[in-house]
Structures are given as C-alpha cells and as structure tokens.
C-alpha cells in the first residue's frame, strides 16, 4: 500500500511523478495499480461536498500528472477511468431508477432534445461509499486482467501451430503458458534489440516446456511464411485502433500482412487510450532513450556518429486483426465503442474545467 502518513497531496503527487520519471515501476501493471491507490487516497482525503468539487480537484491533480508525464498513456487512462466511475456513481444515485444511463453524445439524444445536462453540482449521500465499492471492482479488474486474457488462449492457439511474438510481454507470456497446458505448439521469439527482452521470454517459455526458438529481428521476414499467427503485447492502444508498441512491431505487422498472417494483440482494458496519432511528428508520442545497447559507450566511434534509440513504434489499425482484452475479442473498428463505454467525453481533455 501507499505510505501516506501525514504527507500532503502535493508531496504525494511529486513523489509519484518522480517515481515514474525514474522508472521505478517498470511494469505497466504496477503503474496502473499505484495510480489507482493514489487516487483512492485522494478521494478519501479531499474535502468535498458536491461531486463537481471532487471531480475538479481530481482533474487538477490528473492534469498535473499527465502534463508532467506526457508519455505515460496508462496514467491518463486510469485517471479518466476513475473520473468516469465517479460520474457513473453520481448519475446512478441521482436517477435511482433502472433506466439506462447513456452519457455519450448521440444522434438520438439530439433528436429527443434532452437538455438536462447533469452539472454534478449536487450533494449525493453515501457517494464515497459507492465510489469505493466501484473502485474495488476496478482494482480487481486490473489485477485479474492478465488472467482473464490468458483464459481465452485455447480459442486462438491450436495444436501444432507456429506462433511468432516480439520481445517480452507479460500478457503474451501468460497467454502462451496457459495454452501450453492443453496444446503443443511452437513459438518463435524475436530478440527485439536493443533491449533483447526476447531472450528472457525464450528462457521462461523453454523452462515451461514450450518449444521455443529465438531468432534475430532481421530474420523475421524469412520466418513469417511459416508462421500461423503473430501474437504481440502492446504499450497502449490508440483511439483509432492503432498501436503504440515496442520498436520493431510495425515491421512484423507489415510482414504478417504480406503473408496474410493474422496479428493478435493482447491488451487489457486499462491500456486503451483516448488519444489519436495525428502526425508522426506529434509531441509526446515517442521517446528516445539512451543509445547504450545500440552502440557501446567505450567504442571510439561514439563521438563521431549520431545514434537514435526510439522506444516505440506506431502500428496502424489496418495491420491489426484482433484485440484480445479481459472482456473478450474486439476488432480494431470496435475500439471507439469500448472507449465510449469506459471514459466520459468531458474527461478527454483534463486541462479544461467544467463549469
């Protein structure tokens, strides 16, 4: 749990931001959990009476965090999700009846000209309690997401298939291990240089008695003609169904498209981002990290050449066949629907204050 005794919110925020900046929590799953815990504490300790006060305070904190960490999409996703949970609980308590609550803009709403936009400016008794209950569910969802994804493994991996994966992703590892309980299949793993996480995955899988072959990134195209399925993990799913994922995945996706091999992406719901890629020059999309690994520092040539080591790749939605989330399989064209279910449109931009 968080160590929160006597610390002010500002200190907590600064701690949280610096922890993320120093990459203390390497795993996305840990980041997600820590974010929920932090905001849980905020909801508990902020002085608020009307829902809008709570929302605005949280949005302010959220804006501070997301502008300090523009590259961490997950953080923004979790914050938006929590804001939506609060909005949902507020509306549910206000309407009390069983009627369907639809917060999204739709043609239907325009035509029926409902103009009772909720301004969240009322005091709802026991709101905190219901928010916490809902947050508990959300935390359980995050905890069990990898498990829920791997449960679907047998529907996608069949006997004697050849699977190709890129680098190391915890979702993929669990997925393959789950499938291996009932099926025998072969896995090709690309090294994914310069970090070479693929080696670790190959090791883990072979310990699990899965026949795995480690290949250099460069031979990926040659091997693709023999592959039945490409299964990859992802850093985040963009709002148009595209992927922000580890470097080298776009090449794999293109090779797969060339041989008509399906590309399956394992993405828990908290990796769904409400952002779009509007240009390859977009700020806060890609990250350049230390060139160590591409070129050794001790090499004398280091001072004479430019070395780039970007972290992410963008894969357009047309190169993705299927997303598997903890809620089941979705095609890329369905992502907009999922987004509208889990985020409120007012929270897409955290910088603008609601009235």
């Amino acid at each position, binding site marked *: 749990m968080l160590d929160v005794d006597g610390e002010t919110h500002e200190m907590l925020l600064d701690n949280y931001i610096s922890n993320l900046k120093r990459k203390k929590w390497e795993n996305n799953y840990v980041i997600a959990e820590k974010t929920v815990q932090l905001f849980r504490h905020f909801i508990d300790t902020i002085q608020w009476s009307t829902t809008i006060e709570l929302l605005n305070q949280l949005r302010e904190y959220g804006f501070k965090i997301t502008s300090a960490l523009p590259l961490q999409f997950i953080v923004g996703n979790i914050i938006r999700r929590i804001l939506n949970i609060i909005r949902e609980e507020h509306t549910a308590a206000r309407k009390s009846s069983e009627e369907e609550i639809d917060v999204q*803009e739709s*043609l239907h709403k*325009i*035509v029926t*000209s409902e103009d009772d936009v909720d301004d969240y400016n009322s005091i709802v008794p026991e709101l905190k309690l219901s928010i916490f209950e809902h947050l508990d569910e959300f935390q359980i969802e995050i905890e069990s997401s990898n498990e829920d994804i791997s449960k679907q493994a047998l529907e996608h991996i069949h006997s004697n298939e050849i699977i190709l994966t890129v680098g190391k992703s915890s979702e993929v590892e669990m997925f393959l291990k789950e499938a291996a309980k009932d099926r025998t299949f072969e896995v090709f793993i690309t090294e994914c240089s310069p970090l070479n996480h693929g080696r670790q995955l190959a090791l883990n899988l072979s310990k699990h008695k899965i026949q795995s072959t480690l290949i250099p990134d460069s031979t990926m195209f040659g091997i693709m003609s023999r592959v039945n399925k490409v299964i990859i993990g992802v850093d985040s799913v963009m709002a*148009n169904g595209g992927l922000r994922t580890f470097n080298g995945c776009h090449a794999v996706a293109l090779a797969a498209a060339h041989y008509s091999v399906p590309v399956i992406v394992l993405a828990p719901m908290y990796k769904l981002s409400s952002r779009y890629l*509007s*240009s390859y020059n977009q700020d806060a999309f890609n990250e350049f990290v230390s060139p160590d690994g591409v070129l050794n520092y001790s090499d004398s040539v280091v001072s004479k050449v430019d070395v780039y080591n970007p972290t992410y790749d963008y894969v357009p939605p047309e190169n993705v066949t299927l997303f598997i989330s903890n809620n089941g399989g979705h095609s890329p064209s369905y*992502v*907009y629907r999922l987004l509208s279910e889990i985020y409120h449109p007012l929270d897409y931009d955290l910088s603008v204050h609601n009235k």
Partner: protein
Amino acid sequence: MLKKEVSEYFSNIMEKESDISASIAAITTLLKLLEHDKSETVQELDLNLQSAVEVITNSSFRITGVSSGCALFMRFITFAKLDNITFAECKKVMLDRGKVFLKKLTDARNKVAKITLPFFVDGTNILTHSKSRVVLEAMKLAVNSQKRFHVFVSESSPDKSGTEMYNCLKALDIPCTLILDSAVGYIMERVDMVMVGAECVVESGGIINKIGSCTMAICAKEFKKPFYVLTESYKFSRMYPLNQKDLPNNFIYSENNSNDDNSLSAHPLVDYTHPSYISLLFTDLGILMPSAVSDELIKLYL
C-alpha cells in the same frame, strides 16, 4: 402555410444565407411551418409536414443534404408525439424542443472544429476539395490558435467551388494554393493529410460529396495519407449505396441537367466515396470510425 410559401421561405434561406447548410435550412423551414400550422390533430400535422418535405425535396436545389435533415426532423416529431396527451400540449412541447434541437444542430460545426484542432500539427500540408463550411471553420479555428499549416485547394469543376474556398482561406490569411483537379495525383506526395467535408454520410460510413472526392480518396489511400472527413452528424442518412449507380438522380444532377434525357452526357455533381478510403470522421458526436455511423443510425431509427 401554403406549399408556395414553404417553397419561397426555403429558397429564401438557401439563396440569402450562404453560411447555412441545406439541412439546417430545411429544418428551419419545417419549424416555421410547425409554428404557423393550424391543424387540430396529429395526423393532420403529419400530412402537412410531409407535403412540406415533398415541396422542399422537389425544389430546384440539389437535395443531397436536405433529405437527411428532413428525415431527422420527422423523427424528432415522432418522438415528441409519443410523450403527450393533448394535441395542444404536444405542439407546445414540439416548439420548445424544436428550439433546443435547432440550437444543437447549429452548434455542431463549432464542435467539429474544436475536436479537429489537435490534428493541425505545425508545418503540415493539407489538401482539401471543393468548398466545405465545416472544413473552413476548422481551419479558421486552427489559424486563430496560432497553428502554421498550408492548404492546397483543388479547383473542383464544374462549379469551381474550390476557387471560392481559396478566396475564403486567403481572406483568413491562411497560406494556400489553388490546384487543378487533375493535379491531385501530382500534389499528393507533398501533403500530409486530406481533409474534406461531406454533403451526406451514408450508413456504411462512406460519404457523398462533391464530384472528385472519390478520386482524391483513392489517391490518398494509394499514397498512404490519412483521409479525414469533417461533417455534422445531421448529415448521417439512411442510405446504403453499393456503387455510384445506386445514387438517386436528384442527388447527382441539379434540376437543369437532370431533365436531360441523355443522362450519360450530363456531368454528375457528386460521387460516393467508399468507407474503406476514409480514415476518420470528425463529427459533433466525437471522432468516429466509419463503422460507427451505422451504429448511430440504428440507435436513432430502430
């Protein structure tokens, strides 16, 4: 209101207020009719409205955008009818809601402009076709937000509406270049994205727009440039054309050339762009993928 008056009122808006789209003009006309209507029963009102819709759709203007607006209005009336007991009450509710309804529709363009803003990245080259009020509004907002971009406008024969767009952009001090329709392929490698409006969005998520849009979309797809459509959601229409031939004649031709027996020699004024060429639709309902259009329509009309 008599048929003649309806027709005059509608033509008046269409001719005088260039800033208002045909759908809005039609809906304003129908609301006006509702206000002056003296009918005593719902049935009578329905008949009156239907004949007015007929008058509007038979007017000399091309009705691509009008039909979806009229359908939306009739749907609006149907919903309002359901809730109330007496006719007088019902009519009052219709008028009240009508105002809210119209306001929502007229706000749509600003909403679209706002959500498009993040896609104007500094230094981008944008290709656009013909004249679209939404695209113009979005570019206006972008340039007012200190974005730097260059616009290529295709001339868009036969009515040269691209020239008009070019002049509007010039007036806003947006750097722009007018190109020939035939130069679309030539210019495509230099642009970063294509941004067009739509006269009508069909159920598949494809669009019906000024002739030449389809060519531009196919070209953009081949060059792997994103093809963005900016449109208000009231242009969503319940049609499902499979090819160009499926488009109704009164969409393709204006009155002057549709009477021509030899329709092969007449120039079509709109074409249908298949959804697979469209990257995203920017609407007042949010940024949608083409597949979302049928979703919206099903929610409304089922």
